[in-house]
């Protein structure tokens, strides 16, 4: 265990140094990450305005709080390893990585965390600005804050795991980014970016059964205070279940893929 901690510390230092060179790219990425939720917040606000200021049980202020939460959670849970992985296989860079004593997953984890830590100071002021512009109303209690921590961690892990699950398909096909695009659209529809799951109309019942909502919508609702403590506990339980399932799926798929891996430069 000690050994693992020391290794992680070394990788962290290396990744922070690398991240410092990507400042501009990070800012640009943040810009896009913010515009998306603002676009939909504006749409829902306009829609609510014609309905007397509220849709369902959400007022414009509630929507604002929801989307601020969604943006924050989105940034905290994002993962992009599938794209990198496909690139590495195609460029033949995977094989040397597999020869290292550490599973590529560890590097991926550190790179992921470092990016988020580095970009958070830039994101927070913008979120405050959005919250103030739209007069966001948070119904959060301390119980919610406490539950938010495990929820967002589970969501991040879940999204990470699913990212790797999709990435393993790269062992079989070079068209992973095609699969990723379709996957991204499913996430867009069912994870809560387009709308809180309760407002998805006919699609809501499907959405609750899919894992995507538990990557984004669940922790966002907890943070905003839109879910009761009981509901929050239930959400967390479902998140844990999906994480376990995706972990098992990944383990199995990775083993199968590795065996089948007859690579460029294997």
């Amino acid at each position: 265990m000690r050994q693992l901690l020391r290794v992680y510390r070394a990788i962290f230092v290396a990744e922070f140094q690398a991240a410092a060179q990507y400042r501009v790219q990070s800012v640009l990425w943040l810009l896009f990450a913010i515009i998306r939720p603002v676009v939909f917040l504006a749409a829902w606000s306009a829609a609510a305005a014609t309905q007397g200021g509220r849709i369902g049980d959400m007022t414009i202020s509630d929507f604002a709080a929801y989307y601020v939460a969604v943006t924050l959670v989105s940034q905290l849970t994002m993962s992009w390893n599938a794209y990198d992985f496909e690139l590495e296989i195609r460029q033949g860079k995977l094989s040397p990585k597999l020869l290292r004593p550490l599973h590529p997953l560890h590097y991926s984890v550190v790179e992921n965390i470092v990016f988020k830590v580095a970009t958070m100071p830039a994101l927070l002021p913008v979120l405050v600005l959005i919250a103030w512009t739209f007069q966001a109303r948070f119904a959060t209690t301390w119980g919610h804050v406490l539950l938010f921590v495990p929820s967002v961690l589970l969501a991040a892990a879940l999204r990470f795991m699913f990212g790797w699950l999709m990435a393993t398909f790269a062992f079989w096909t070079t068209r992973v980014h095609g699969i990723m695009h379709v996957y991204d659209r499913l996430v867009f529809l069912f994870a809560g970016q387009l709308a809180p799951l309760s407002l998805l109309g006919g699609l809501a019942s499907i959405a609750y059964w899919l894992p995507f909502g538990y990557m984004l919508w669940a922790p966002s609702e907890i943070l905003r205070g839109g879910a009761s403590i009981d509901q929050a506990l239930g959400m967390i339980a479902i998140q844990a279940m999906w994480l376990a399932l995706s972990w098992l799926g990944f383990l199995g798929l990775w083993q199968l893929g590795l065996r089948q891996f007859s690579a460029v430069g294997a």
Partner: protein
Amino acid sequence: MQFALEYRANLALDLFEELIIVISSLVAVLILYDHTSAINGWTEGQMIELLGVYYLVQGAQAVVFETSFERFMEHVRMGTLDFILIKPVDSQFMISTRHVQVPQFGQIAMGVLVLAIGIAQVGGGFGVLDALAFAATLVCGLLLVYSLLLVLSTLSFWFVRVENLLAIFWSFLDAGRFPVDVYPGWLRVTLSTVVPIGIAVTVPAQAIAGRLELAGVVAMIGGTIIMCWFASWFWRRGLRSYTGASA
């Protein structure tokens, strides 16, 4: 033979991806209108028309402009621009239309399809004048976006690496999917001036929805002429200051 087949398979997959993207955006609009009958005065059919125009503009922009301007900037960076400039065709035109992307035509086609769906939903709703206004403002919108891209690319004469500026442009592109009037002040202004994707989509959509007045059309045409003239002037300025890679 295998290569040709693989190319066609890749093409089919690209088109399929486009289809998924467009369908999910359509679903997004439908879900919104599950809860309300109008947004800022836009009915469901009119919003679908706008979505159609959005994909039309995005596809048109991607088809010709994106790759050509990208290649141009690469030429500047690698110093191979001279080979293009000595050809007898007007350099601005050559730079802009050399490379054409087929999948993006699919996006345009889907934009037209969505527009048609919207029109069907609205039940017509426009007259001959509106149709003319639509055509005019659509062309204006495309020219505005083209001018912006030309200005950004011209900056490579001095700064060489302007991809980051382009990335800023593309991140704002997403906001074009809704009418520009739903956005808060600062964003609305940005989308109408600096990054004109907002008006490039909203104004033609207003025209086809029968919501645009003559003053709007005139303003759009006037603004476009000014912008095009400026971009062209700026391009020539950049060309003049270009001393070549192998002086």
